[in-house]
């Protein structure tokens, strides 16, 4: 049974391991994956705990459907207090790790303490071992994974690991599995590094009995047909996420030169079609690969064609690497995007964050805020490809004053650099935004402002807002399973009804993160993909758990509220520029300079933005300061948190 997967509490200071079942009562309240992780984090950390101290809890999990006969249950979720934001840390990745962990008997690992010397955790068939990792320390993310397989003489082992960036406590180091699957955001790799934890390896041969196998199999087939018939997924399966870059750049939604432009010019060499050509030339016609049990296969394989890294095999680049090593620093060479992608994968660092930090440093240099002395001989001019790649090395190795400073994350770095450096940092809650520009899209601006892990598109972005879908279609999607009769608008530049869309997406994405499935299998980029009405059956057939659409909605709302409770406990406040639901002033003050006619000249209207926040808080049952009302906590059954059920 999926529901008999266990939770292991692992204390790296004492070496104690405590393995427990997950009570059904807890499942019904938090399901699994990210939702249950949020509950565990809130219950297993204390207010103000040091993100890099032994008291921080690092939680690694699969979802309730992981490795069952449902579509694309590949996601691994990682949660801890973030060393980048000092608020909620949370990151999610595909690949093959979470299913292996489930076959090994576990859904959640709660890791506390700090090992005296480098170790790795090995979860296998109901057991947890803590093993020496002295020989793995210093290795790149892939070398470390292959070394674990060699040491344990088992090619089927799946590991999530940190690279040198995590070891060097780069505040936005990630956790990786496979070639390029990355739990990228909020510095979860830095937390692993702080615990002297190089890797978590898993190998499992334990049965996961499907509650109703024939129905699960047939429903999965229906699901897959629904998912693969969506045009957006067919495009993903051909070009990967880069296709988003092409579309977004054409209408003017990409941060360029940090935040000075919203469209990258002369970028033919990094357009999705060009990257696809390189993949075809270096790998062959069948160069797309996928995560566990997924038929979207959105990940390209490639070899770097030219330059100092010529011949290196890697996967991607994603939309995010096109931004990080393309539009943000205004570098328009495919070689830089592909090499940058390779370097971040090997070092184990968040491509979004490092790309944003580099572009920010370049703008500061242009403005004379970073001096030549601080630049340490580097010409930080926009479009300087070699310097961008050099900075990746310096940041990940904390090499020199500039590398070390930028490795600390935006807010600490702004203090060290001085002057008004902070004003140019495109961040929310201490985490940089990805390379998208939300000035023309209020819904998307509200999403990044209120996302629980800091500026981020994968917590609540109503991406379908860009499609100008007819109002009845939008109303149908956004009235399920909870009726909504407020305003709704097909216009992506409008403010009306956007707060509800963001609220709905927040619950939708929380639900899939609890299930452990990928967001390409729900209403994210495609309007026809499965959502609340489809999940009760897939949950029932696979686990036997009977939940209605409304109950799943309630669970998602509850889990989102736990994340908010955590953030409030750690200092979140509505309008705080560094710890609030607030955007950088540039969103309100600097008009878009390029793009489509309905984009040029756009800014976010401060007053309307505040009203969206008011509405969003009202939908969530928060007061005007963003604090849950007592009746909201009562409705969600959260009035007694922390409740220590686990």
């Amino acid at each position: 049974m999926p529901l008999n997967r266990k939770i292991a509490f692992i204390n790296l200071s004492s070496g104690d391991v405590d393995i427990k079942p997950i009570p059904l009562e807890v499942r019904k309240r938090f399901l699994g994956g990210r939702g249950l992780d949020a509950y565990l984090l809130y219950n297993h950390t204390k207010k103000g705990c040091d993100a890099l101290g032994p008291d921080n809890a690092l939680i690694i999990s699969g979802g309730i459907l992981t490795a069952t006969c449902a579509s694309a249950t590949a996601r691994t979720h990682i949660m801890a207090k973030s060393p980048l934001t000092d608020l909620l840390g949370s990151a999610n990745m595909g690949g093959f790790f979470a299913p292996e962990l489930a076959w090994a008997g576990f859904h959640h690992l709660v890791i506390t303490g700090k090992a005296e010397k480098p170790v790795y955790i090995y979860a296998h068939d109901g057991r947890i071992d803590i093993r020496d990792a002295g020989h793995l320390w210093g290795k790149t993310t892939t070398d470390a994974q292959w070394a674990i397989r060699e040491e344990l003489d088992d090619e089927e082992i799946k590991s999530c690991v940190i690279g040198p960036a995590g070891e060097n406590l780069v505040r936005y180091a990630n956790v990786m599995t496979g070639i390029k699957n990355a739990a990228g955001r909020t510095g979860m790799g830095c937390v692993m590094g702080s615990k002297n934890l190089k890797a978590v390896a898993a190998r499992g041969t334990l049965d996961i009995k499907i509650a109703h196998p024939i129905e699960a199999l047939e429903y999965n087939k229906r699901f897959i047909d629904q998912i693969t018939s969506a045009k957006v997924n067919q495009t993903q399966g051909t070009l990967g996420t880069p296709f988003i870059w092409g579309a977004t750049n054409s209408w003017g939604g990409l941060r360029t030169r940090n935040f000075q432009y919203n469209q990258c010019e002369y970028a033919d060499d990094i357009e999705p079609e060009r990257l696809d050509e390189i993949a075809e030339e270096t790998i062959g016609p069948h160069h797309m690969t996928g995560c566990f049990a997924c038929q979207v296969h959105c990940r390209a394989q490639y070899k770097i064609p030219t330059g100092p890294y010529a011949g290196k095999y890697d996967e991607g680049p994603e939309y995010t690497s096109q931004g990080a090593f393309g539009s943000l620093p205004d570098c328009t060479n495919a070689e830089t995007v592909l090499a940058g992608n390779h370097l971040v994968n090997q070092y184990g660092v968040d491509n979004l964050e490092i790309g944003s930090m580099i572009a920010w440093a370049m703008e500061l240099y242009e403005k004379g805020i970073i001096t030549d002395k601080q630049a340490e001989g580097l010409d930080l001019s926009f479009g300087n490809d070699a310097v961008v790649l050099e900075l990746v090395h310096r940041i990940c190795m904390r090499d020199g004053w500039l590398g070390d400073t930028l490795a600390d994350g935006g807010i600490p770095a702004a203090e060290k650099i001085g002057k008004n450096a902070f004003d140019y940092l495109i961040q929310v809650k201490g985490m940089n935004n990805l390379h998208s520009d939300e000035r023309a899209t209020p819904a998307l601006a509200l999403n990044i402002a209120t996302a629980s892990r800091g500026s981020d598109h994968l917590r609540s972005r109503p991406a379908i807002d860009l499609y100008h879908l007819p109002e009845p279609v939008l109303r149908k999607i956004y009235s399920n399973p909870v009726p909504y009769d407020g305003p709704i608008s097909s216009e992506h530049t409008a403010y009306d009804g956007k707060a509800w869309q963001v609220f709905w997406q927040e619950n939708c994405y929380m639900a899939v993160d609890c299930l452990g499935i990928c967001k390409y299998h729900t209403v994210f980029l495609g309007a026809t993909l499965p959502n609340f009405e489809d999940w009760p059956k897939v949950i029932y057939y696979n686990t036997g758990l009977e939940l209605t659409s409304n109950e799943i909605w309630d669970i998602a709302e509850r889990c989102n509220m736990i994340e908010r409770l955590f953030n409030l406990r750690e200092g979140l406040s509505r309008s705080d520029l560094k710890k609030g639901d607030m955007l950088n002033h540039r969103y309100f003050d600097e008009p878009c300079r390029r793009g489509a006619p309905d984009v040029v000249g756009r800014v976010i209207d401060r007053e309307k933005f505040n009203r969206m926040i008011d509405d969003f808080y009202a939908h969530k049952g928060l007061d005007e300061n963003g604090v849950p009302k007592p009746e909201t906590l009562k409705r969600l059954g959260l009035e007694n948190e922390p409740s220590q059920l686990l």
Partner: protein
Amino acid sequence: MEKVLMIDHEKCTGCRLCELVCAVKHDGISNPVRSRIRVVKWEADGVYIPMSCQQCQDAPCQIGCPVGAISHDEELGRVVVDYTTCIGCRTCVSVCPFGAMNFNTVDRKVIKCDLCDGDPQCVRFCEVKAVEFVNAGDVSILKKREAAQRLYAAENRSAAIHSEL
């Protein structure tokens, strides 16, 4: 008409959905050790190769079985294990040249591809058609067509190069 699994590893994305549905179809359980088809990977090079039973004509498993538990099912073109006779000695596992005869360590019995009695689930679920179920006599003609297509494409490319010169 006899049909066979035709595997084109170049098309395989390595997702292992075939393993999942194979195990669930046969045993109602998700567990790769129960799957009759397995995707062998060289991840560092991005190479994924699905491996399953070839349903050999002169099957070493059948020839080697000391109790005669393995036979050829002419109708469906498959090699089958009779579990009432099988003693679980695993001779078939050791002689199979493809590693396609598996030993399920949970139920402690040998398992192999039975073509799902004519409706292989690995084929049904593989959208990229890395695994297909085709008439036994058509495999070579399909491969000929693909090879010819490559030749044709190469010829066109070389013609383009010549015209540029």
